[in-house]
């Protein structure tokens, strides 16, 4: 993974000094809260319901064991012994004191981490496929390009006071695990007719109050021009994005107002005009960055298979181990290796939370078995991308002992949920307790949730949609009705290659009604699905009607 040189380190250290000064100016009264707020947000510091919340950047979701251990130490020393992994592949601490934040930033800098631009109206942490560098179907590892974007966007002199926040996601696989169609800019690595690698550039996707699936701005951008093209898009947005209404200030609103063709003309004109030589990386710099992402050397048994290790498991463990292998691990591009997903969705737990002990357990496993690499996934789990197949039994046992081996990746209880009204100052309803109840309910269904196959349930506690409810196969939006929590259900959304915004199916339901509604939806699906058909595909084939009927008949009864 990328390592700081003296320049990267200096920038992070100078940013901490700057922030320490900003905190001192706030405490002395030189800065008002209105002035301090955007400054602290640009360094990831929120004020939530109960306390400050610090969002630490995990650039493109990649962590080393040492970094994860440092996060565990911060959780113990400055927080309450746990952290919360987010849909932007970052981690949040829910309880730091303002006066401690500069010291936390010092601890982060010691392991080459920071909290820059994890909030605010600037270019946020770039996200990517959690399987990057390990997936069999990728064109090339997208992370060197993510690192290039990280550096280009960090403290950008022109684009640090944008109309609104700006999120970029990158994937290099045919299978989109980074939700590139619902980002301000989505970059999908593709090859042109001559086999050269470049990017399909997608713009104007997003969730929030006004969800849009992004449009293709350019079918093929030669990869060496990535940064100058991004610069052109950002300049058009900085100048033309709306600033009169924060709810209409995202780039998706601008793209939609102008139309994709007119927007493309502006970007291409700008791109043609700007000085690319001062922005695009020369091949030496691209190679310098890429060298940090060289695939880890594998000296293990290339002939080991998961069938083999499963067959060798003791009889009393075999069924559970096989189930975990099937659901929580994925093929690696190197024979003899496997990608291991670490579920942060224990049945009844808070989605995405990990205790300091759990962080240390994963850090230890990655160090011992996993080339020192951990990834954070946008679905709020962790991932160890490089595990030798022969080590899977040991890894599984250790994860299980730490409460991290729930076999539910991409199943119904693998729920994305925002922090909701339990933590968030913007929320209108709670999310996590509902996720806990739904997970408990679906896991208890006859035959277990495995029989339901892939099913994405996503819960947001307000219209800002941090829980991605618009793109849940079953999406749930919390609303406040005269002081009571109600939940609006949408169906048929997807954040993957077949991205779609879910359809609202009827009036909002009270909490108890939501649990019964989920059961009713799953009953319809199980009764009417074709063999092997996913919930999403069954919904698309059958349409909303049978599901609506079940929902509201049930609610009326």
């Amino acid at each position, binding site marked *: 993974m990328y390592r700081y*040189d003296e*320049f990267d380190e*200096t*920038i992070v250290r*100078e*940013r901490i*000094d*700057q922030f320490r000064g*900003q905190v001192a100016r706030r405490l002395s009264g030189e800065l008002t809260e209105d*002035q301090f707020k*955007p*400054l602290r947000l640009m360094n990831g510091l929120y004020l939530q319901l109960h306390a400050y919340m610090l969002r630490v950047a995990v650039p493109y979701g990649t962590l080393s064991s040492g970094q994860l251990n440092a996060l565990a130490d911060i959780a113990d020393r400055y927080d309450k012994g746990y952290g919360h992994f987010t849909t932007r592949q970052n981690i949040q601490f829910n309880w730091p004191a303002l006066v401690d934040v500069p010291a936390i930033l010092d601890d982060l800098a010691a392991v080459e981490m920071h909290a820059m631009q994890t909030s605010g*109206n600037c270019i946020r942490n770039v996200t990517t496929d959690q399987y990057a560098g390990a997936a069999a179907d990728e064109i090339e590892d997208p992370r060197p390009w993510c690192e290039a974007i990280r*550096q*280009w966007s*960090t*403290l*950008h*002199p*022109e*684009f*640090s*006071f*944008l*109309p609104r926040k700006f999120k970029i996601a990158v994937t290099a696989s045919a299978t989109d695990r980074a939700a590139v169609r619902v980002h301000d800019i989505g970059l999908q690595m593709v090859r042109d007719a001559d086999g050269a690698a470049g990017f399909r550039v997608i713009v104007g996707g997003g969730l929030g109050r006004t969800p849009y699936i992004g449009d293709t701005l350019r079918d093929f951008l030669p990869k060496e021009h990535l940064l100058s093209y991004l610069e052109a898009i950002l*300049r058009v947005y*900085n*100048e*033309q994005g709306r*600033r009169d209404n924060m709810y209409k200030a995202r780039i998706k609103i601008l793209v939609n107002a102008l139309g994709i063709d007119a927007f493309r003309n*502006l970007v291409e*004109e*700008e791109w043609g*005009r*700007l*000085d690319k030589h*001062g*922005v695009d*990386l*020369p091949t*030496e*710099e691209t190679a*310098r960055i890429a060298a940090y992402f060289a695939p880890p050397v594998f000296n293990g048994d290339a002939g080991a298979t998961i069938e083999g290790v499963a067959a060798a498991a003791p009889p009393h463990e075999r069924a559970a181990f096989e189930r975990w292998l099937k659901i929580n691990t994925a093929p690696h591009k190197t024979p003899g290796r496997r990608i291991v997903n670490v579920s942060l969705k224990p049945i009844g737990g808070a989605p995405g939370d990990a205790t300091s002990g759990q962080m240390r357990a994963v850090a230890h496993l990655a160090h011992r078995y996993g080339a020192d690499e951990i990834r954070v996934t946008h679905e709020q789990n962790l991932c160890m991308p490089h595990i030798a197949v022969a080590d899977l039994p040991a890894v599984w046992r250790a994860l299980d002992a730490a409460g991290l081996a729930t076999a539910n990746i991409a199943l119904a209880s693998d729920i994305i949920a925002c922090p909701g009204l339990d933590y968030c100052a913007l929320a209108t309803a709670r999310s996590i307790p509902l996720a806990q109840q739904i997970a408990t309910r679906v896991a208890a269904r006859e035959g277990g949730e495995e029989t339901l196959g892939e099913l994405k349930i996503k819960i947001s506690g307000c219209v800002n949609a941090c829980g991605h409810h618009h793109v849940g196969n079953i999406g749930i939006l919390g609303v406040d009705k005269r002081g009571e929590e109600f939940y609006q259900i949408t169906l048929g959304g997807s954040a993957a290659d077949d991205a779609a915004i879910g359809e609202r199916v009827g009036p909002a339901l009270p909490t108890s009604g939501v649990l019964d509604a989920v059961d009713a939806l799953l009953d319809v699906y199980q009764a009417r699905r074709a063999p092997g058909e996913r919930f999403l595909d069954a919904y698309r084939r059958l349409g909303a009607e049978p599901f609506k009927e079940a929902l509201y008949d049930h609610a009326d009864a």
Partner: protein
Amino acid sequence: MITLTLNDGAVRAGADAPAETTFADWAAGGYGTPAHGAALVLANDLDLSSVDPRANFSLFGEIIVHVPTFKDGRAYSQVRRLREQYGFDGVVRVRGDVLRDQVQFMARVGVTAVDVADDAVGGVKESARDFSVFYQASVRQYGADRAGPIWRRRAARALAA
């Protein structure tokens, strides 16, 4: 209010500021030659992506951009265009709601002077030196830093090693 010049820290009293012409008035007059020493004032929402070919900014020695609230970042792109797209070589002065934490960003897109309250000069000068290294190129030599993008420094260091 006084005007602080960013590259040398010199200050100019408000009373010594030049006379001003708005872009709208200049346009209405057919982009003619301004009164000697006049400064051109650009509205914050003026689109500089393309202007009338007769608009020769270099007829002015000083251009003033306006920041209505510190959260509004349009002026940064305006200044960059003045420097890069139109080759404007004179003074670019920022007026309005500016936090001292923003001054170094401004210098890096080509701002050379900023209007500040008399008692804010020390803090602004200090913040204008917050960073010594930048990932991106700064607009030519107008800012406090004279370096190109970071990869040029890396290449130079690699060559020296």
